[in-house]
């Protein structure tokens, strides 16, 4: 498997099932880091995290440490966080501000666009030492859409436009909710880790099938979940109270795919027309004032629940946040959740969003913790070698074209979105980098 011969990889995915090695084999994981995370368009960060020249954040693309920083010319650069001299990570804080980036080991100093500026005791560098050749390595391709910064670590491959395709509309859906038409990811973050494969979290973000069971502990005896949004009078009906089965409203939810592994789920029927609170009402007024009543009404009509932009980011429309998935090892994954502040919305509305995200998606939340338990148990169960296959066949063949949206549609409690992720996975994995 080390060599990753295409025919051997091809045997790991079948139309309705995935081989356990895809989750449990360290060699497959190494190939994923090369063939998926080494070349796909990956979400890096949001421009609001580096509002001023000299501001930076550090993160990882796959396992590779990077710096996203804003230079004096206002350009946002994605630099590999590795000194060109002997290799130490240059910037060690998760965020900050600097006019120069200096390596702790021998003091090599870089500008915020990655250029090498000074080398201590330069006479030792030898004849013809060219500082221009020793800048920080950079992501060869970087693109931004409405503040969301993506990078590819490969010099060639599908363009960002080809990759992102109609998913731009999902970003628009979120950004347009801000009265000033901009988001700010400046409200801190939630960080959690679990002993499981990264794809378990990826599959989960669009999985509507698990909700009544996986999150049973958040549902009261009437089958209703706690209210999750500012201004909601009550939460969604998840289970029919008398029948102990999934609520019809839930079963009717749809999911959508558009190629490249991306997809989304439609909104829960949560908007009962009664959503109201002083903060929400003031927000509605602020939005209508900026964009007009008709457009505001359109924006506030919930259409999208969760979106996945394959392979490392999800944007969530209910408890609004950006979720970044970072593989650490075949059986270890870190997830970072950024609350979103809607610029121009009243502070109380933004607080409502932050407050409810604490209870749905912090490491100590009511919702995410049961998912983490499922991921850990999946990784443990998949150690069994008596059964090689993971079943993802729900709704196989039931997909249908949505002519209005020009996408493919299925029931959200089916597994169409997971199969779409594995088609994308195979697209990356069967070709050597």
């Amino acid at each position: 498997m080390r060599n990753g011969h295409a025919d051997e990889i091809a045997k790991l995915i079948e139309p309705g099932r995935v081989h356990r090695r895809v989750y449990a084999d360290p060699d497959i994981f190494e190939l994923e880091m090369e063939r998926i995370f080494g070349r796909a368009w990956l979400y890096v960060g949001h421009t609001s995290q580096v509002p001023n020249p000299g501001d930076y954040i550090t993160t990882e693309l796959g396992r590779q440490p990077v710096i996203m920083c804003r230079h004096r010319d206002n350009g946002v650069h994605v630099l590999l966080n590795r000194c060109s001299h002997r290799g130490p990570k240059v910037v060690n804080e998760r965020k900050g501000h600097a006019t120069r980036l200096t390596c702790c080991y021998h003091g090599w100093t870089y500008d915020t666009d990655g250029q090498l500026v000074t080398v201590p005791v330069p006479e030792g560098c030898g004849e013809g030492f060219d500082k221009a050749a020793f800048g920080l390595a950079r992501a060869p391709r970087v693109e931004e859409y409405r503040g969301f910064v993506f990078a590819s670590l490969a010099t060639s491959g599908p363009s960002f436009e080809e990759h992102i395709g109609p998913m731009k509309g999902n970003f628009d859906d979120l950004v347009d909710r801000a009265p000033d038409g901009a988001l700010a990811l400046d409200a801190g973050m939630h960080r959690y880790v679990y002993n499981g494969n990264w794809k378990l979290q990826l599959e989960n973000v669009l999985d509507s099938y698990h909700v009544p069971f996986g999150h049973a502990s958040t549902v009261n005896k009437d089958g209703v979940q706690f209210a999750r949004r500012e201004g909601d009078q009550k939460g969604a009906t998840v289970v029919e109270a008398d029948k102990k089965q999934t609520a019809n409203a839930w079963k009717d939810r749809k999911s959508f795919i558009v190629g490249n592994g991306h997809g989304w789920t439609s909104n829960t029927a949560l908007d009962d027309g009664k959503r109201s609170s002083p903060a929400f009402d003031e927000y509605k007024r602020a939005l209508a004032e900026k964009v007009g009543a008709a457009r505001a009404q359109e924006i506030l009509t919930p259409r999208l629940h969760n979106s996945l932009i394959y392979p490392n980011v999800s944007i969530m429309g209910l408890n609004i946040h950006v979720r970044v998935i970072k593989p650490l090892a075949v059986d270890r994954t870190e997830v970072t959740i950024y609350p979103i502040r809607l610029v121009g919305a009243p502070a109380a509305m933004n607080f409502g969003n932050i407050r409810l995200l604490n209870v749905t998606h912090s490491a100590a939340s009511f919702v995410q913790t049961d998912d983490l338990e499922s991921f850990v148990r999946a990784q443990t169960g998949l150690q069994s070698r008596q059964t090689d296959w993971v079943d993802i066949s729900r709704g196989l063949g039931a997909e249908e074209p949505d002519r209005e949206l020009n996408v493919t549609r299925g029931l959200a409690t089916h597994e169409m979105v997971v199969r779409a992720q594995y088609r994308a996975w195979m697209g990356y994995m069967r070709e050597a980098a």
Partner: protein
Amino acid sequence: MDAVNRDNVADIDRAPFELFLIQEAHLLDERRFREWMGLFADDGIYWVPAVPNQESPFDQASLFYDDRELMKTRIDRLEHPRIHVQTPPSRTAHLVGNVIVEQTDEGEFLVRSTFIMVEYRDDRQRTFAGRQSHRLRREGASFRIVQKRVDLINCDSAFEAMAVPI
């Protein structure tokens, strides 16, 4: 955290405050969460910040920021038979020490302490540690919690799932 105001500290008998913190720790360790919630005032808040020296829960993410209503939802869930992340349940042991008491207002006190909580669940053991501050309001012979703030030393790290309050 502010420096301790020594003028207000000198005359206060620490014993009843220490006893209160010990009893609170017992309720948590014995999983008597509903009684634990009962220690909070009706306007009481339980707050675990997600960054060191976090100034506000309103503009930043927190690990926990529960008013009584959210606390009740959390405890309903902890008592739910299908809470997977508590199957099997956590066992915890709290140790509270280094207690300092300061009177902040008529009938209100700020009690600062250091804690360690060891949690065992499903063959794994982990440690939480930090400083906590309880804003207490005198009520009869005891106190109600106006705010309990827990500052974990690793509050900004990536955590595995946390189900029980600290």
